[in-house]
């Protein structure tokens, strides 16, 4: 099917003439669009991308605010904040967060950040925005499904949001929702209606991810412009491709786990529930296995962390190459290592379950496979460093965040190797060491990748620049803050401080961390304020930012910069350009950069 047909609605009306790649038609006819079809139920991938981004930003503010609230409890367990009572009501009676509210905040923080911000907000935004623009397509394979993907995400958001306002509060059994806690309404008030809403919301979210993922894969494989062979694709596209494959294969398994959980909650089944006492009563359930849920959850859960990080990796590769004016080092090795990561991601889930009584013999295999992931990860790190090595680096906020990404990915990846050894994990599991590990390697790194991408592609999205000075302030405070917050947590974890506790002041062994916890919470507040500065910059610049005056402001080679400054639906007013070379011809044969659309000349050296 031609690109043209994707735009012109769902019915496959007969087309005359064989305009291959849909280039023949004049695509300049701008049908008058209503506000609703342009901004709300839009089928333009660029608008859908912005919808994902802005929804993601709103969620990020909420999710981060939640972490500020529970950090207040952790840093200042004895203090009271009367204003908390005025915003949280009886959840913060007397100005102190109740234990129940604390668990709800922690659970929602994890759910929101992992799924709604770093999955939907990150890969949803940039897969949508960049895939058609960088492969040279007018839109996605199915713009309609793409629109549905956003609206399913929107519905998931609404349901989750609604769960904040029910009387018994939102789900509060952790972002992993382990049974039996999550299966029994009597076990915790957060496992009542809040948990049902959580499950419904997550089911809608899975549907959204599947619709999106289908489209991304199908577009990348079928709608590339002439000359755009797979090995001429920018690494961003490769990363979105592997991300989508991971999502399409692992989210359904999560859904099956959730369906069984729903039956345990409401159908009286015993998939996960075994002989249990709750509130002094013996439950009728027999012979269920709570570990079964963990297998189903982590079969998604581990690929999910790569779903989060792969797009960031791809975009960082791109931003680093452009801003060091050098070709990416080891293009094929980069693709190969992403492929290896994608395969291994399915084979290591049990490293989250080393202490569940897993057969140690089996554990040994999972240790081996887990440590193997370090190999492709290290290859990528070396390639990023060699890419910027002796480069003519332009320090934009985008490139700084990319360099920051490489730094945090190294620090967090190294602690992964500790955790991947099952014997060390017996001590470290469920401590702050794990919190430190995954916040640095996933949370901070993925955010840095996202920030890099936002600073870099904002001019393409809105035709204006983000303010650079605010960008630099944003980067340096966030970078320093991230390490100040999470680095000390390694020590707390090694000292055995468990995660998910409400108050550590009762333990003699953790008294030594009182000031450290205060310090962390203090930095959290500063970093949070800095993010608000970024949000201000974002919305201010949409309307008032410095205008982009050239189509290719970063002197980049890829196709999105061959479109007009504010591309319409269909992206290119005329024909879709043809591609002749790979996307990383920087500083080649004396030229600063050569766009992908320039034919390879006879006297040119091959890359």
């Amino acid at each position: 099917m031609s690109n043209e047909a994707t735009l012109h609605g769902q019915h496959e009306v007969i087309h005359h003439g064989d305009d291959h790649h849909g280039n023949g038609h004049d695509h300049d006819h701008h049908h008058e669009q209503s506000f609703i079809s342009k901004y709300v139920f839009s089928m333009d991938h660029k608008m859908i991308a912005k919808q994902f981004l802005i929804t993601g930003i709103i969620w990020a503010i909420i999710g981060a605010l939640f972490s500020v609230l529970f950090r207040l409890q952790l840093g200042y367990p004895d203090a009271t904040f009367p204003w908390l009572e005025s915003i949280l009501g009886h959840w913060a009676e007397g100005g102190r967060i109740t234990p129940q509210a604390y668990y709800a905040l922690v659970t929602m923080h994890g759910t929101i950040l992992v799924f709604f911000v770093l999955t939907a907000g990150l890969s949803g935004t940039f897969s949508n925005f960049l895939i058609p623009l960088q492969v040279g397509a007018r839109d996605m394979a199915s713009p309609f499904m793409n629109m549905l993907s956003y609206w399913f995400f929107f519905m998931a958001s609404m349901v989750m949001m609604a769960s904040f306002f029910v009387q018994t509060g939102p789900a509060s059994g952790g972002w992993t929702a382990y049974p039996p806690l999550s299966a029994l309404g009597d076990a915790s008030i957060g496992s009542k209606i809040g948990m049902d809403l959580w499950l419904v919301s997550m089911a809608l979210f899975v549907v959204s991810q599947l619709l999106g993922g289908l489209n991304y894969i199908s577009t990348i494989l079928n709608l590339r412009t002439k000359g755009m062979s797979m090995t001429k694709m920018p690494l961003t596209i490769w990363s979105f491709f592997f991300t989508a494959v991971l999502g399409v294969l692992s989210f359904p398994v999560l859904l099956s786990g959730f369906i069984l959980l729903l039956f345990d909650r409401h159908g009286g089944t015993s998939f996960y529930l075994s002989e249990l006492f709750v509130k002094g009563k013996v439950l009728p359930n027999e012979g269920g296995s709570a570990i079964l849920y963990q297998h189903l959850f982590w079969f998604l859960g581990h690929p999910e962390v790569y779903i989060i990080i792969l797009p960031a990796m791809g975009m960082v590769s791109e931003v680093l190459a452009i801003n060091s004016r050098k070709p990416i080092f080891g293009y094929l090795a980069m693709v190969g290592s992403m492929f290896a990561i994608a395969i291994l991601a399915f084979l290591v889930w049990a490293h989250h379950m080393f202490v569940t009584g897993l057969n140690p013999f089996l554990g040994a295999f999972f240790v081996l496979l887990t440590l193997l992931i370090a190999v492709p990860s290290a290859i990528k790190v070396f390639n990023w460093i060699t890419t910027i090595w002796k480069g003519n680096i332009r320090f934009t906020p985008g490139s700084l965040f990319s360099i920051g990404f490489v730094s945090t990915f190294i620090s967090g990846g190294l602690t992964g190797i500790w955790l991947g050894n099952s014997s060390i994990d017996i001590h470290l599991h469920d401590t702050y060491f794990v919190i430190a590990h995954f916040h640095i390697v996933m949370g901070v790194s993925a955010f840095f990748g996202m920030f890099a991408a936002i600073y870099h592609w904002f001019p393409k999205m809105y035709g204006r620049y983000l303010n650079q000075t605010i960008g630099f302030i944003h980067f340096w405070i966030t970078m320093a803050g991230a390490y100040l917050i999470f680095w000390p947590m390694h020590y707390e974890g090694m000292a055995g401080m468990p995660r998910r506790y409400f108050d550590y002041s009762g333990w003699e062994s953790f008294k030594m961390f009182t000031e450290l916890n205060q310090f962390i919470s203090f930095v959290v507040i500063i970093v949070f304020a800095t993010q608000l500065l970024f949000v201000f910059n974002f919305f201010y610049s949409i309307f008032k930012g410095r205008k982009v005056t050239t189509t290719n402001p970063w002197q980049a080679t890829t196709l999105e910069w061959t479109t007009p400054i504010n591309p319409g639906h269909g992206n290119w007013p005329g024909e879709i350009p043809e591609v002749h070379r790979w996307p990383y011809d920087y500083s080649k044969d004396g030229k600063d950069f050569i766009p992908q659309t320039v034919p390879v000349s006879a006297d040119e050296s091959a890359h």
Partner: protein
Amino acid sequence: MATMSAQKNKIHPHKFSLWIAMGSITMMFIGFTSAYVVKRSQANWQSFELPSIFWISTAVILASSLTIHLAVRQFKQRNMSRYKQLITLTAILGVLFTVCQILGFADMMKHNLPLDGPVSASFIYVIVGVHILHVLGGVVTLMVMFVRAYRTRIRTYSSVPVEVAATYWHFVDLLWIYLLVFLSLAR
């Protein structure tokens, strides 16, 4: 489509998306059946005979695969009235299949195997139930196709939507065969 001419050997993106979706649905059932395998290896697993009506439903869904196959043929030959009859028949067979499965549930309940009974029975309800939902999704698609065939304003000559629907239908059929074989062997 005529515009396909330049990419004749390429698979249509909608068909392609369907294949990915089928992979995705398969993964969900692999999730269920692996959970089943894990549970089965644990203590207190109670095995029982599957309701015999499941074999009748198998015959019904196999027949429906045949009718939809013929429907695609008739569509390609622009035999629209035969086409409409055949997709109606397919949809009816789909509903019949669902009825048989539900009778199977009733049979299990009669034999003291309710949803909240032994976990081996719970699995049957959940797995077969989720499969039924996929069949019903196919029935709804067929109804949409049926209405479309009456549309005069926009005439569609492309067989892609019909083929997509047929492929999906064969897929839920095969999925059932897999589940039936799995559930009867791994009891």
